[in-house]
């Protein structure tokens, strides 16, 4: 009995170490964004000057707004199209359904490097130059499968006879969807939307290949800054990004249990 307790203790300590490994670098980065020294000299001297510099950096601010704007558009499109597709998979059975569902995996499973360069080649060939429309096309395609998977998971808990009951009471197909089905899957749709937003807002690889160099998204700007030799200003903006994306995911967790038990 005591040995079991000892092992349990070890397990907890191990979990603690893993969490330390996951969060320590992020915390260091956040701390360093408040370090006055440009060369990260320790011990650090507290300063908010890099945040001030950031607030005057037109290039970063413009790209941040562009990233937010793109992510919003992607969220709206991907959530709409993805929810419709999930509903179709739930309601109807038709030949080829299984194949269509399997086709959702390539966008998730193929390395983004390949997907991104393939998009670059194709879009360029059909006359869509590098720029925001190309980025939105690409991001939405990557976010769609996530929405479909999340909404489908929520629909799996939906009692089909509720739709039958609504129809037996005289409701049309659209009335059934609006009054019965959508309220039930609402939490899944919201979670899917938040996923889409995160996929787009954090997306670097696709944007790297598809965005117009002078007119690009925040992660691409950060990447080039890192490559050029970074300053704590990048720490500042990176810290803000982490806060935003973790905030979104905490919100998503309220609507979608990752643990699967609902």
């Amino acid at each position, binding site marked *: 009995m005591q040995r079991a307790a000892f092992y349990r203790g070890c397990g907890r300590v191990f979990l603690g170490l893993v*969490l330390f490994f996951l969060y320590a670098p992020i915390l260091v980065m956040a701390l360093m964004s408040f370090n006055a020294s440009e060369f990260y000299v320790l011990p650090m001297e507290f300063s908010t000057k890099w945040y001030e510099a950031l607030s005057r950096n037109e290039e970063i601010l413009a790209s941040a707004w562009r990233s937010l704007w793109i992510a919003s558009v992607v969220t709206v499109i991907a959530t709409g199209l993805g929810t419709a597709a999930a509903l179709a998979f739930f309601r109807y059975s*038709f030949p080829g359904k299984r194949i269509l569902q399997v086709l959702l995996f390539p966008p998730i499973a193929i390395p983004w490097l390949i997907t991104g360069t393939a998009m670059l080649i194709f879009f360029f*060939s059909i006359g869509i130059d590098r720029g925001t429309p190309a980025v939105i096309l690409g991001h939405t395609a990557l976010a769609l499968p996530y929405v479909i998977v999340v909404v489908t998971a929520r629909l799996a808990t939906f009692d089909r006879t509720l739709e039958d009951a609504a129809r037996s009471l005289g409701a049309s*197909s659209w009335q059934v969807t609006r009054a019965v089905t959508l309220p039930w899957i609402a939490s899944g749709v919201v979670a899917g939307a938040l996923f889409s937003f995160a996929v787009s807002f954090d997306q670097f690889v696709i944007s790297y290949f598809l965005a117009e160099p002078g007119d690009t998204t925040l992660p691409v700007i950060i990447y080039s800054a890192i490559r050029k030799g970074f300053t704590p200003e990048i720490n500042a903006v990176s810290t803000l990004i982490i806060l935003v*994306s973790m905030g979104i995911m905490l919100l998503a967790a309220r609507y979608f249990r990752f643990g699967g038990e609902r």
Partner: protein
Amino acid sequence: MAASLARREAFRAATLLSPAYLWLTLAVFLPLSAMFFFSFLSDVPFGDREWELTFANYGAFFEKRVYQILFWRSLELGLTVTLLCILIGYPCAYVLAKVIRGRGREALFLLVILPFWSNSLVRIFSWAIVLRGNGVIDYSLDAILPFEVSVNLMFSYPAVVIGLVHSYLPYVILTSYLALQAVDDELIAAARSLGAPARTIFLRIILPLSLPGLLAGAVLIFVPVVGSFMEPRILGGRAGTFYGTVIEDQFTAVFNWPLGAALSFVLLFAVLLILAVSSPVLKRAQ
């Protein structure tokens, strides 16, 4: 009557599905096909450039040793990172699923997978700050140890491995946790009532039942790591030349798109092979 009903259902299904799948076709499937076509071209077919169909791009992969060396190096990187993620992630998932009880579990689980959904570029960047010479590590070691040390991991193979493990660890924790949680505690209780020691219970019941989840996580890590280029560029510096970075070069520096397409397809082929081999086990995971 039944036939027309089926047709009406098919029509409704098509109405709901076609926007999503047209989008995927335009942005994923057609681009992949176009890339496949490009991989057989001698030059990009734009403007008045001369081009013809050729196998030369694939030939380059097999003739030039450097591509093969880098290909194997990327596979090795993938294996190393995947293995480390399993060794760290599976026990971690086990602790979460079977040791920790009550409300704390969900919060801890969320805490573990939260970084996974935050910006990967930024997380790699955070390691650049931690690992640089005269940085946080040296400073903390100096504070603890009585003698001077200097650890400079930045721009090395280990730095790339650390960054990638950090990026992809939550994957294997997520899939293993879901699989482990699905193992009914009653099964374990039943095995104990039959007198099985803890080691046997783990090896004969818990591990086999959660193996599909573990493998799913492994595949989900291996595939993107083999194709990674941003992480090696930032953390590897000169030691960070891999297969992925060579492909990237073809598109952003050398502008040899056909060669880049061919190299991508070699990688894609390897990825599909791995997915195909592991798919029977992965199917059981669902």
